[in-house]
């Protein structure tokens, strides 16, 4: 399906969820749960915790779908932010289960397209990917492990074997350059 059509369908389904339509919630779940489970699993590194968080995410979608404002955010961004925030908050409570080898941090999904991928593999994703790849290698790796795994500055500094102050500087510079690159 074309990205715009998928996005519109998801937006429409969220509006139906807000009106209390359970089948619409199931449609949202079917279209997005594999992607969001991958996202929260990466942050928590524990299937049981990730399943609990995923359940919380869709219960929150059910109860708060009326807060989604299609004129202010894309439905993907709204759902992904909800899932990432829940997962990161949970990770701050329970800790990350075991550390994952660094070389998996930048792993790129191949195949297994889900509805959500159709939505985010767009020009935005390509442009962001290009901008990230222009960052210095160690800044890029640091930003990736922070973003994909929801690690704190201290944690990601330890992972990369640098002082926390250095890590803050790497990631902040990376963010400045990213923002500038995306505005080009």
């Amino acid at each position, binding site marked *: 399906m074309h990205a715009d059509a998928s996005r519109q369908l998801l937006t429409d389904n969220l509006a139906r969820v*807000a*009106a*209390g339509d*359970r089948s619409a919630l*199931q449609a949202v*779940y079917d279209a997005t*749960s*594999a*992607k969001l*489970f*991958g996202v929260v*699993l*990466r*942050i928590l590194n524990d299937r049981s915790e*990730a*399943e609990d968080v*995923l*359940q919380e995410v869709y*219960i929150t979608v*059910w*109860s708060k779908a*009326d807060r989604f404002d299609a004129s202010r*955010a*894309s439905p*993907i*961004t709204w759902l*992904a*932010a909800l899932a*990432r925030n829940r997962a*990161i*908050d949970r990770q*701050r409570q329970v800790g990350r289960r075991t550390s994952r080898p660094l070389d998996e941090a*930048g*792993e*790129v*999904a191949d195949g*297994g*397209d889900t509805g*959500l*991928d159709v939505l*985010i593999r767009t020009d*935005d*994703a390509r442009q*962001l*990917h290009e901008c*990230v790849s222009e960052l210095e290698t160690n800044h890029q790796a640091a*930003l990736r492990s*922070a*973003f*994909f795994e929801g690690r*704190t*500055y201290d944690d990601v500094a330890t992972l990369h074997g640098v002082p926390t102050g250095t890590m803050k500087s790497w*990631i*902040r*510079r990376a*963010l*400045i*350059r*990213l*923002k500038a690159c995306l505005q080009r």
Partner: protein
Amino acid sequence: MSDMGLGAGPDMDPDDQLAAEHVVGVLTADERAQVETRMATDAAFADRVAAWEERLTPLLAEVAPETPPRVVWMRISAQLGAVPRKTSADAGLWRSVTAWRTATAVFAAAAAAAVAVLVTRPPEVVQVPAPAAPAAGELTSVALLKDEAGPTSFVVTFDRDNGRLIITPVTAEADADRAFELWLLPDGAAPVSLGVLNGQEALILRTDQLVGPNGANATLAVSLEPLGGSPTGLPTGPVVASGQLKPV
């Protein structure tokens, strides 16, 4: 700034930096709580966070999707009916009620009447013994009944508000000549049969027997029994799943 000559660009606006750090996910639990509070009160800051979410979310295209186990949707589905939800219409009504309240004492009385109408339950009156004042938020309990030794599992949702207990089979296959029977296991007393399931359809029960001081934390078990249920009124076959309700 001195950074400029190095090609790193100027420092970021502190608010923009904080918003970006929140979205990347590098802040501590305390810092995250502060950011959440600020987002709720500072619209300009919330907009900065939203802008960074839009910028960075496309990176998630790189995360491999992973199909969650079916039990997750079953749990969500079982929980839906019990989750209180406010639609925009409700929110609007509440806002207007609030407005009346602040207007005059006369309107305040009218508003109180409106609230009374709003909180009146649907006219489905079940014989429910008055429980010992359930704490707010304890109107719903859920349990996953399972057994480490086998694949059988059920999801149970106790909706005290509506006096319903909903048992949904997740993985449950019985021989053609056997049925699943659900039991309440009271502390220090014999199991109480709650009903018989076929393993394919959800069973919805009135919860008169469960409602009590410990209803929201009841322990439940499922045994394999002859079709139609245990002939003795007590479990006769193996227990294939068990678990305890927990308030959510």
